Protein backbone atom coordinates (compact mmCIF):
# COMPACT_ATOMS: atom_id res chain seq x y z
CA UNK A 1 0.00 0.00 0.00
CA UNK A 2 1.46 3.35 -0.95
CA UNK A 3 2.04 5.85 1.85
CA UNK A 4 0.13 9.02 1.55
CA UNK A 5 1.78 11.27 4.08
CA UNK A 6 5.43 10.61 3.28
CA UNK A 7 7.85 9.46 6.00
CA UNK A 8 6.32 8.91 9.44
CA UNK A 9 7.01 11.46 12.15
CA UNK A 10 10.02 10.73 14.37
CA UNK A 11 9.01 10.53 17.99
CA UNK A 12 10.78 13.33 19.78
CA UNK A 13 9.36 12.51 23.17
CA UNK A 14 12.66 11.24 24.55
CA UNK A 15 14.56 14.34 23.48
CA UNK A 16 13.67 16.04 26.75
CA UNK A 17 15.02 13.06 28.70
CA UNK A 18 18.32 13.19 26.86
CA UNK A 19 18.62 16.92 27.39
CA UNK A 20 17.78 16.55 31.08
CA UNK A 21 20.47 13.92 31.42
CA UNK A 22 23.04 16.27 29.93
CA UNK A 23 21.78 19.13 32.07
CA UNK A 24 22.10 17.10 35.25
CA UNK A 25 25.59 16.00 34.23
CA UNK A 26 26.70 19.62 33.84
CA UNK A 27 24.96 20.65 37.03
CA UNK A 28 26.86 18.15 39.13
CA UNK A 29 30.27 18.36 37.48
CA UNK A 30 30.64 22.12 37.37
CA UNK A 31 30.85 24.97 39.82
CA UNK A 32 30.08 28.57 39.08
CA UNK A 33 33.25 30.57 38.71
CA UNK A 34 34.17 32.40 41.87
CA UNK A 35 37.16 34.18 40.52
CA UNK A 36 36.71 37.64 41.85
CA UNK A 37 38.12 39.11 44.99
CA UNK A 38 40.03 41.86 46.73
CA UNK A 39 43.28 42.74 44.96
CA UNK A 40 46.11 43.61 47.34
CA UNK A 41 49.81 44.26 47.06
CA UNK A 42 51.99 42.80 49.79
CA UNK A 43 54.83 44.97 51.11
CA UNK A 44 58.22 44.00 49.67
CA UNK A 45 60.61 42.09 51.90
CA UNK A 46 63.54 44.52 51.73
CA UNK A 47 63.04 47.57 53.89
CA UNK A 48 63.36 50.92 52.10
CA UNK A 49 66.88 52.35 51.96
CA UNK A 50 66.32 55.49 53.95
CA UNK A 51 64.07 55.65 56.95
CA UNK A 52 60.95 57.51 56.06
CA UNK A 53 59.54 59.51 58.91
CA UNK A 54 55.78 59.44 58.92
CA UNK A 55 53.88 61.67 61.26
CA UNK A 56 51.61 59.83 63.62
CA UNK A 57 48.65 61.94 62.53
CA UNK A 58 48.99 60.65 58.97
CA UNK A 59 48.53 57.05 60.06
CA UNK A 60 45.10 55.58 60.60
CA UNK A 61 45.57 52.46 62.68
CA UNK A 62 43.08 49.62 62.59
CA UNK A 63 43.64 46.72 64.96
CA UNK A 64 41.59 43.54 64.92
CA UNK A 65 41.80 41.33 67.98
CA UNK A 66 41.13 37.61 68.15
CA UNK A 67 37.47 38.13 68.99
CA UNK A 68 36.96 40.23 65.89
CA UNK A 69 36.71 43.53 67.77
CA UNK A 70 38.09 46.63 66.13
CA UNK A 71 40.37 49.18 67.70
CA UNK A 72 40.48 52.18 65.40
CA UNK A 73 42.80 55.05 66.37
CA UNK A 74 42.84 53.67 69.95
CA UNK A 75 39.07 53.59 70.21
CA UNK A 76 36.75 50.63 70.08
CA UNK A 77 34.65 50.85 66.96
CA UNK A 78 31.81 49.00 65.30
CA UNK A 79 32.38 47.56 61.82
CA UNK A 80 29.55 49.63 60.40
CA UNK A 81 31.26 52.90 61.31
CA UNK A 82 34.65 51.93 59.91
CA UNK A 83 34.08 53.04 56.32
CA UNK A 84 32.87 56.48 57.40
CA UNK A 85 35.79 56.92 59.80
CA UNK A 86 38.30 55.89 57.12
CA UNK A 87 36.76 58.29 54.62
CA UNK A 88 36.85 61.15 57.11
CA UNK A 89 40.50 60.44 57.75
CA UNK A 90 41.47 60.18 54.07
CA UNK A 91 39.89 63.42 52.92
CA UNK A 92 40.66 65.43 56.02
CA UNK A 93 43.16 67.64 54.18
CA UNK A 94 44.63 69.51 57.16
CA UNK A 95 47.32 71.33 55.15
CA UNK A 96 44.78 72.74 52.69
CA UNK A 97 46.64 71.53 49.58
CA UNK A 98 43.81 69.22 48.60
CA UNK A 99 41.15 71.33 46.91
CA UNK A 100 38.71 68.49 46.20
CA UNK A 101 38.60 67.20 49.78
CA UNK A 102 35.46 67.79 51.77
CA UNK A 103 36.93 66.90 55.14
CA UNK A 104 36.92 68.89 58.36
CA UNK A 105 40.56 70.02 58.02
CA UNK A 106 41.18 68.81 61.54
CA UNK A 107 44.86 69.57 62.33
CA UNK A 108 45.11 66.37 64.40
CA UNK A 109 44.22 64.18 61.41
CA UNK A 110 45.82 63.52 57.99
CA UNK A 111 47.55 66.32 56.00
CA UNK A 112 46.34 65.32 52.55
CA UNK A 113 45.19 62.13 50.77
CA UNK A 114 48.61 61.37 49.29
CA UNK A 115 50.18 61.31 52.76
CA UNK A 116 47.38 59.43 54.50
CA UNK A 117 48.22 55.82 55.30
CA UNK A 118 45.92 53.18 56.68
CA UNK A 119 47.68 50.59 58.78
CA UNK A 120 45.88 47.30 59.34
CA UNK A 121 47.03 44.93 62.06
CA UNK A 122 45.52 41.63 63.03
CA UNK A 123 45.98 38.85 65.52
CA UNK A 124 46.92 35.30 64.52
CA UNK A 125 43.63 34.13 65.96
CA UNK A 126 41.50 36.60 64.01
CA UNK A 127 38.93 34.91 61.84
CA UNK A 128 39.58 35.24 58.10
CA UNK A 129 36.03 36.38 57.41
CA UNK A 130 36.43 39.29 59.83
CA UNK A 131 39.73 40.25 58.24
CA UNK A 132 38.20 40.21 54.75
CA UNK A 133 35.25 42.29 55.92
CA UNK A 134 37.58 44.92 57.36
CA UNK A 135 39.70 44.93 54.19
CA UNK A 136 36.51 45.25 52.19
CA UNK A 137 35.37 48.25 54.20
CA UNK A 138 38.73 49.98 53.82
CA UNK A 139 38.84 49.37 50.07
CA UNK A 140 35.23 50.54 50.03
CA UNK A 141 36.25 53.82 51.66
CA UNK A 142 38.77 54.46 48.88
CA UNK A 143 36.29 53.41 46.21
CA UNK A 144 33.55 55.67 47.58
CA UNK A 145 35.86 58.68 47.53
CA UNK A 146 37.16 57.84 44.07
CA UNK A 147 33.63 57.30 42.76
CA UNK A 148 32.63 60.71 44.06
CA UNK A 149 35.52 62.46 42.32
CA UNK A 150 35.13 60.42 39.12
CA UNK A 151 31.45 61.27 38.79
CA UNK A 152 32.30 64.93 39.33
CA UNK A 153 35.01 64.87 36.65
CA UNK A 154 33.75 62.35 34.11
CA UNK A 155 30.15 61.70 35.07
CA UNK A 156 30.58 58.00 35.84
CA UNK A 157 31.76 55.76 38.65
CA UNK A 158 35.44 55.04 39.12
CA UNK A 159 34.81 51.34 39.75
CA UNK A 160 32.96 51.11 36.39
CA UNK A 161 35.79 52.83 34.56
CA UNK A 162 38.41 50.65 36.20
CA UNK A 163 36.53 47.44 35.45
CA UNK A 164 36.17 48.47 31.81
CA UNK A 165 39.84 49.43 31.65
CA UNK A 166 40.98 46.09 33.10
CA UNK A 167 38.64 44.03 30.93
CA UNK A 168 40.73 42.51 28.09
CA UNK A 169 37.72 42.59 25.76
CA UNK A 170 37.55 46.39 25.79
CA UNK A 171 38.88 47.84 22.51
CA UNK A 172 42.33 49.41 22.90
CA UNK A 173 41.19 52.85 21.76
CA UNK A 174 38.71 52.99 24.63
CA UNK A 175 41.32 51.66 27.03
CA UNK A 176 43.88 54.31 26.14
CA UNK A 177 41.27 56.95 26.79
CA UNK A 178 40.32 55.37 30.12
CA UNK A 179 43.90 54.88 31.24
CA UNK A 180 44.52 58.56 31.88
CA UNK A 181 41.18 59.04 33.61
CA UNK A 182 41.66 56.04 35.87
CA UNK A 183 45.19 57.13 36.68
CA UNK A 184 44.09 60.66 37.51
CA UNK A 185 41.37 59.52 39.91
CA UNK A 186 43.71 56.97 41.48
CA UNK A 187 46.26 59.69 42.11
CA UNK A 188 43.67 61.85 43.84
CA UNK A 189 43.27 59.18 46.50
CA UNK A 190 46.28 56.84 46.23
CA UNK A 191 45.62 53.58 47.98
CA UNK A 192 48.09 53.31 50.84
CA UNK A 193 46.99 50.38 52.89
CA UNK A 194 49.73 48.79 54.89
CA UNK A 195 49.38 45.25 56.17
CA UNK A 196 51.73 45.02 59.07
CA UNK A 197 53.05 41.71 60.29
CA UNK A 198 50.73 39.77 62.50
CA UNK A 199 51.13 40.05 66.24
CA UNK A 200 51.77 36.76 67.96
CA UNK A 201 49.99 37.14 71.26
Amino acid at each position, binding site marked *: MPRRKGAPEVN*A*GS*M*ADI*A*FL*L*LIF*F*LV*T*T*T*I*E*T*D*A*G*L*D*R*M*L*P*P*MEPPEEDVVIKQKNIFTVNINKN*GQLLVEDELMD*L*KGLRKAAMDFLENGADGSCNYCQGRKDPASSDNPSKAIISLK*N*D*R*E*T*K*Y*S*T*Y*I*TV*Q*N*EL*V*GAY*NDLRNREASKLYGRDF*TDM*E*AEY*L*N*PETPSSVRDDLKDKVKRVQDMFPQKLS*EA*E*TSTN
Partner: protein
Amino acid sequence: MGNFRRNKKKLPAISTASLPDIVFMLLFFFMTVTTIKNTPILVDNNLPKADQIKKLEMKERVIEIYVGKPTEELSKVLGSEPKIQLDDRLAHVNEVAPYVLSEIAKRPDAIRNTMTVSLKVDKKVKMGIVSDIKEELRKVNLLKVNYTTFEGNQLSQLQ
Protein backbone atom coordinates in the same frame (compact mmCIF):
# COMPACT_ATOMS: atom_id res chain seq x y z
CA MET B 1 -22.34 17.08 35.28
CA GLY B 2 -22.84 15.44 31.94
CA ASN B 3 -21.67 18.59 30.36
CA PHE B 4 -18.49 18.57 32.43
CA ARG B 5 -17.65 15.04 31.48
CA ARG B 6 -18.05 15.77 27.81
CA ASN B 7 -15.66 18.67 28.12
CA LYS B 8 -13.09 16.48 29.81
CA LYS B 9 -13.16 14.01 26.98
CA LYS B 10 -12.50 16.74 24.45
CA LEU B 11 -9.63 18.33 26.45
CA PRO B 12 -6.60 18.19 24.13
CA ALA B 13 -3.26 16.86 25.34
CA ILE B 14 -0.82 19.60 26.31
CA SER B 15 1.91 19.77 23.75
CA THR B 16 5.31 18.97 25.23
CA ALA B 17 7.12 19.62 22.01
CA SER B 18 8.78 22.75 23.37
CA LEU B 19 10.03 21.04 26.52
CA PRO B 20 13.31 19.95 24.90
CA ASP B 21 13.89 23.54 23.79
CA ILE B 22 13.46 24.83 27.32
CA VAL B 23 15.74 22.18 28.75
CA PHE B 24 18.34 22.82 26.08
CA MET B 25 18.24 26.50 26.90
CA LEU B 26 18.96 25.70 30.56
CA LEU B 27 21.67 23.30 29.47
CA PHE B 28 23.43 25.91 27.37
CA PHE B 29 23.16 28.41 30.19
CA PHE B 30 24.91 26.06 32.57
CA MET B 31 27.48 25.07 29.97
CA THR B 32 28.49 28.68 29.41
CA VAL B 33 28.54 30.00 32.97
CA THR B 34 30.38 27.09 34.54
CA THR B 35 33.87 25.73 34.30
CA ILE B 36 34.88 22.17 34.93
CA LYS B 37 37.06 21.89 38.03
CA ASN B 38 40.27 20.23 37.01
CA THR B 39 41.63 19.76 40.50
CA PRO B 40 39.73 17.99 43.24
CA ILE B 41 39.32 20.15 46.31
CA LEU B 42 40.65 18.45 49.39
CA VAL B 43 39.78 21.17 51.87
CA ASP B 44 36.58 22.91 52.90
CA ASN B 45 36.32 25.99 50.75
CA ASN B 46 33.51 28.23 51.83
CA LEU B 47 34.79 31.67 50.83
CA PRO B 48 33.82 34.83 52.69
CA LYS B 49 31.77 37.55 51.05
CA ALA B 50 32.84 40.99 49.90
CA ASP B 51 31.41 43.61 47.59
CA GLN B 52 34.38 45.80 46.61
CA ILE B 53 35.75 43.08 44.40
CA LYS B 54 37.60 42.99 41.13
CA LYS B 55 37.35 40.20 38.60
CA LEU B 56 40.42 38.06 38.04
CA GLU B 57 41.00 38.29 34.32
CA MET B 58 43.25 35.97 32.38
CA LYS B 59 43.37 32.54 33.96
CA GLU B 60 46.93 31.84 32.86
CA ARG B 61 48.23 34.61 35.10
CA VAL B 62 46.68 33.19 38.23
CA ILE B 63 48.14 30.74 40.73
CA GLU B 64 45.63 29.28 43.15
CA ILE B 65 46.26 28.36 46.77
CA TYR B 66 43.48 26.77 48.79
CA VAL B 67 43.34 26.91 52.57
CA GLY B 68 40.78 25.27 54.80
CA LYS B 69 40.21 22.37 57.10
CA PRO B 70 40.31 18.97 55.37
CA THR B 71 37.05 17.62 53.98
CA GLU B 72 34.97 15.31 56.12
CA GLU B 73 36.50 12.05 54.93
CA LEU B 74 40.06 13.35 55.07
CA SER B 75 39.66 14.95 58.48
CA LYS B 76 39.39 11.46 60.04
CA VAL B 77 42.98 10.87 59.01
CA LEU B 78 44.40 14.37 59.04
CA GLY B 79 42.50 16.04 61.86
CA SER B 80 40.61 19.28 61.60
CA GLU B 81 43.48 21.76 61.63
CA PRO B 82 43.46 24.00 58.52
CA LYS B 83 45.66 22.76 55.70
CA ILE B 84 47.10 24.29 52.55
CA GLN B 85 46.27 22.72 49.21
CA LEU B 86 48.65 23.28 46.32
CA ASP B 87 47.51 21.85 43.00
CA ASP B 88 46.04 18.47 44.03
CA ARG B 89 47.90 17.73 47.23
CA LEU B 90 48.05 19.01 50.77
CA ALA B 91 51.24 20.77 51.68
CA HIS B 92 53.18 22.44 54.46
CA VAL B 93 53.72 26.20 54.60
CA ASN B 94 57.39 25.68 53.60
CA GLU B 95 56.30 24.23 50.27
CA VAL B 96 54.36 27.29 49.20
CA ALA B 97 57.35 29.24 47.91
CA PRO B 98 58.87 26.40 45.82
CA TYR B 99 55.45 25.55 44.39
CA VAL B 100 54.74 29.13 43.38
CA LEU B 101 58.16 29.46 41.77
CA SER B 102 57.72 26.23 39.83
CA GLU B 103 54.32 27.42 38.62
CA ILE B 104 55.83 30.69 37.43
CA ALA B 105 58.58 28.79 35.61
CA LYS B 106 55.90 26.97 33.60
CA ARG B 107 54.48 30.20 32.20
CA PRO B 108 55.87 32.12 29.22
CA ASP B 109 58.46 34.80 30.01
CA ALA B 110 56.25 37.69 29.01
CA ILE B 111 53.68 37.22 31.73
CA ARG B 112 55.95 36.17 34.59
CA ASN B 113 56.00 39.65 36.06
CA THR B 114 52.25 39.99 36.17
CA MET B 115 51.36 36.83 38.05
CA THR B 116 48.68 37.01 40.71
CA VAL B 117 48.23 34.59 43.56
CA SER B 118 44.61 33.84 44.26
CA LEU B 119 44.15 32.93 47.91
CA LYS B 120 41.02 30.83 48.29
CA VAL B 121 40.69 30.69 52.02
CA ASP B 122 37.76 29.23 53.93
CA LYS B 123 36.07 31.83 56.09
CA LYS B 124 36.48 29.83 59.30
CA VAL B 125 40.27 29.76 59.00
CA LYS B 126 42.29 31.83 61.47
CA MET B 127 44.59 34.55 60.16
CA GLY B 128 47.77 32.83 61.45
CA ILE B 129 48.14 30.42 58.55
CA VAL B 130 47.20 33.13 56.04
CA SER B 131 49.91 35.40 57.44
CA ASP B 132 52.43 32.58 57.11
CA ILE B 133 51.53 32.17 53.44
CA LYS B 134 51.80 35.92 52.90
CA GLU B 135 55.27 35.87 54.46
CA GLU B 136 56.31 33.03 52.14
CA LEU B 137 55.05 34.95 49.11
CA ARG B 138 56.90 38.06 50.18
CA LYS B 139 60.11 36.03 50.45
CA VAL B 140 59.90 35.07 46.76
CA ASN B 141 58.83 38.59 45.84
CA LEU B 142 55.41 37.66 44.57
CA LEU B 143 53.45 40.58 45.91
CA LYS B 144 50.23 40.61 43.92
CA VAL B 145 47.61 38.69 45.82
CA ASN B 146 43.89 38.40 45.40
CA TYR B 147 41.78 37.36 48.35
CA THR B 148 39.17 35.48 46.35
CA THR B 149 35.68 35.93 47.73
CA PHE B 150 32.06 35.45 46.85
CA GLU B 151 30.10 38.52 45.93
CA GLY B 152 27.65 39.60 48.58
CA ASN B 153 26.94 41.80 51.54
CA GLN B 154 29.87 41.38 53.87
CA LEU B 155 28.33 42.72 57.05
CA SER B 156 25.59 40.07 57.14
CA GLN B 157 28.02 37.18 57.53
CA LEU B 158 29.21 38.24 60.96
CA GLN B 159 25.89 38.14 62.70
